C-alpha cells in the first residue's frame, strides 16, 4: 500500500541565505546532496511521507524559502499556513546564529493568530573545525524560546531524518492532544485519509469468489 496518510503537515524552513536550507530538504526528500545549488527564488516545494509509528504515516509538505532579503515579502506570506518550522543557522557562520532571534520575531508577527512549532537546527555540523557557534550556546538559545536544538549535516547525512521526524512527532502529539486542531481556511494541518477496512473485506470477497469457481 502506498501514500495513505493520517495527516498532512505543512512545514516551513527558514534562516539566513546560504545556511543550507535547500540542501537539507533535498537530502531529506531526495536522499541526495548537491555540491552546488542556485539560490532559491521565492519559495520551493517538496513533500515526503514520514512513518511516525508502524502504519501511521504523515505527509510532510515542506516549503523551502529563499533566505535572501529581497524575497522576504514573499516568504513572509507563507508563515501563516505552516504548522511547523525548521529554523536553520550555519554553525560556521556566527552572523546566521545571531539572526535567529530576528527570524523568530518576524515569524511571530506574521503567523498570527496561529502558531508554529519550531526546531532550531545548527547546520553544517560536518565542518566542526570551522565552528563559530558552540552547541552549548545554541542549546541555551533554543531553550529560551522553548525550542529543541539539533545539529545536522546534509553533506554527511547526519541527523537529517531525525530533525524532520522529531518535529513531526512533536506536532503529531500536539494534534493528538487537541492542542493543535484542523481549522477551516488554515493549511497547516489537514487530515488525510485513513486506510479503510475494505482491504480485509475485499479479501473475503475474493476468497469467496474463488470458492464459487
Amino acid at each position, binding site marked *: 500500500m502506498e501514500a495513505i496518510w493520517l495527516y498532512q503537515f505543512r512545514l516551513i524552513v527558514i534562516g539566513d541565505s546560504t545556511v543550507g536550507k535547500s540542501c537539507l530538504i533535498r537530502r531529506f526528500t531526495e536522499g541526495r546532496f548537491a555540491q552546488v545549488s542556485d539560490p532559491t*527564488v521565492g519559495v520551493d516545494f517538496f513533500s515526503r511521507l514520514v512513518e511516525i509509528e508502524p502504519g501511521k504515516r504523515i505527509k510532510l509538505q515542506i516549503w523551502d524559502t529563499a533566505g535572501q532579503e529581497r524575497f522576504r515579502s514573499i516568504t513572509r506570506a507563507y508563515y501563516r499556513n505552516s504548522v511547523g518550522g525548521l529554523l536553520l543557522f550555519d554553525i560556521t557562520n556566527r552572523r546566521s546564529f545571531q539572526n535567529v532571534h530576528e527570524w523568530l520575531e518576524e515569524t511571530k508577527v506574521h503567523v498570527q493568530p496561529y502558531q508554529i512549532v519550531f526546531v532550531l537546527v545548527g547546520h553544517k555540523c560536518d565542518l566542526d573545525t570551522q565552528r563559530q557557534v558552540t552547541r552549548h550556546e545554541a542549546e541555551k538559545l533554543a531553550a529560551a524560546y522553548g525550542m529543541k536544538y539539533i545539529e545536522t549535516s546534509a553533506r554527511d547525512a547526519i541527523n537529517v531524518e531525525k530533525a524532520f521526524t522529531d518535529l513531526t512527532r512533536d506536532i503529531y502529539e500536539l494534534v493528538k492532544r487537541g492542542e493543535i486542531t484542523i481549522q477551516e481556511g488554515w493549511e497547516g494541518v489537514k487530515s488525510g485519509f485513513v486506510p479503510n477496512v475494505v482491504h480485509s473485506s475485499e479479501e473475503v470477497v475474493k476468497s469467496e469468489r474463488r470458492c464459487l469457481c
Partner: protein
Amino acid sequence: MSDKDDTETPVITETTPILKDEIREPDKNSESVDQSAKPESESELVASTRRRPEIKPSSDLETSKVQETVSKDVTQTGWGYWGSWGKSLLSSASATVATVGQGISNVIEKAETSLGIPSPSEISSEVKFAAEETSTRENENSLVAGPFGVFSTISSAVQSTGKSVIAGGLDALEFIGKKTMDVIAEGDPGFKRTKGLMNRNSTLSQVLREAKEKEELWTSNEVTMETDKNTHYGLLFDEFQGLSHLEALEMLSQESEIKVKSVLNSLSGEELETLKLELEQLKEAFSLAEFCDEEEEERKGDEDFTKEITELFSQLRVSSKPEKLARARNTAYEWIKAKTLAERKEEEQLEGENAGKVSKSSVEDIHAFAIRSLAELTACSIELFHKTAALVLHGQKQDVTAIERSQTLSQVTVVLCKELSSLSKEFTTSLTTAGVKEKADALNPLITAVFLEASNSASYIQDAFQLLLPVLEISLIENRTESPTHELQVQKPLSEH
C-alpha cells in the same frame, strides 16, 4: 475588476444549452453560476465525482432548468453562435489533419460515449464545490467557470459533429482548446480585452486542489491498484508540486493586483489616463493572439523546443531557466521512441498468438506515462511562471520593459501549449499503433483521456499565464515611477539585519 463581470457572464451562459444534452461534465460549469441560489448540492457532488458516465444525477437536470431561467435572456444568442462555430471549426480542423494512424478508425464508433470520461468530469464537478466557496466570499462567482468553458466547448462541438472530429484527427481537440478563447473574444467584443478565461485568481488552484483531493479520496475508497492511481492527473500534478507553485503564483498575482488597484486609485487626471493607456498596451500582450490556425511546419526535430524555450527565457532576463521543463519534455520523447522501438521488436518476435496480451499492457503503460508526462510538463511550466513572477517582482533591475516581457511570456505560453499538443499527438499515435489489436472500447477511453488532459493542461498553462498580468502591471508601474521620481516605493525592504 468589477467591470469584467458583465462582460464575462456570456461565457458561461453560452454553455448553458449543453445542459440538455447527454454529456455530463459541462453542466457543472453552469451550475456554478447559480450556486448561491442552491448551496445544498454537496451530496450529489459526491456521486458525480465518480467517473461513471452512467450515473447521471437527476438533480443535474433540475439545476439546469433553474440555470436556464436564470440566464434566459443571454442564452438565446449564445447557442446559435456556438453551433455555427462548431461547424466552421470542424471543417478547417479535418482539412488540416489527416495524419493520424489508421487504427484511429476504431475510435470513431465510441467517440461520443467515451467523451464523458475521466478527469474532466471529475474536475468539472469540482467547479461547483469551488464555486460554492467562492460565491460565499464574493458574488462574482460567474467567473469560476472560466477554464471549464473549454470543456464545454470541446464537448459541444464534438458532440454536435460527433464522429468526424475523431476521424478528423487528434488535432481537432487541441485545436478546439486553443481556439476557444479567441472564439469567445470574437463572439463578444466586450470580452476581447480580457480574453483570458480565468480572471478569478483563487479559482484555478482551488479547483485543481479539490479535484486532486477527490481523486485521492476516490482512489483510497475504491482501493484501486497502483497502476490506476498512476493515471490520475490531479494527483500527479500535485506530486510534481504543480498545485503549490500555482498557489504561490496566485498569491503573487493577487498581491500585485491589489497594489495596482491602489496605485490607480491614488492617481487622477492626466496621470491616470497615461497610466491606463500603458496598462492597456500591456494587456494587449496578454491576449495570446498568436495561436496559428493552420498546421505548423512539421516538427523540426527534438532540439527545437529546448532551444526555443531557452531563448525565450533569456529574453525575459530572469535568472530562472527552463532546464527542468526541457528535461521532462525530452524524457517523454525518449520514452516514446524507446517504446516504439521495443514494440516493433516484439512484433517481429511474437508475430501472433501472444501479441494481443503484450500490447494490452503496453497500451496501459503508454496511457499512464502520457498522463504522467502531461502532468509533469504542466507542473514544470507553472513552476516557471511562478519563478518568473517572483523574479519580475523582486529580481534585480533589468534592461527590459514589462511590455517586452509580456510579449515574450505570451510566446512562451504559445510554445508550451504547442508542445503539449504535439506531445499528446505523439502519445496517441503511439497508443493507436500499440493498440491495433485492442477492442475499440478499451482503446478509446485511453486516447480520449490523453486528449482531454492535454487540452486541460493547455488551459491551465494559459490561465497561469493570465495570472502574470497583474505582476507585469505592477512591474510596469514601478519602473515608470522609479526612473523619474521615487515617490512610489511599492516594495519596501524589510527590517535590516
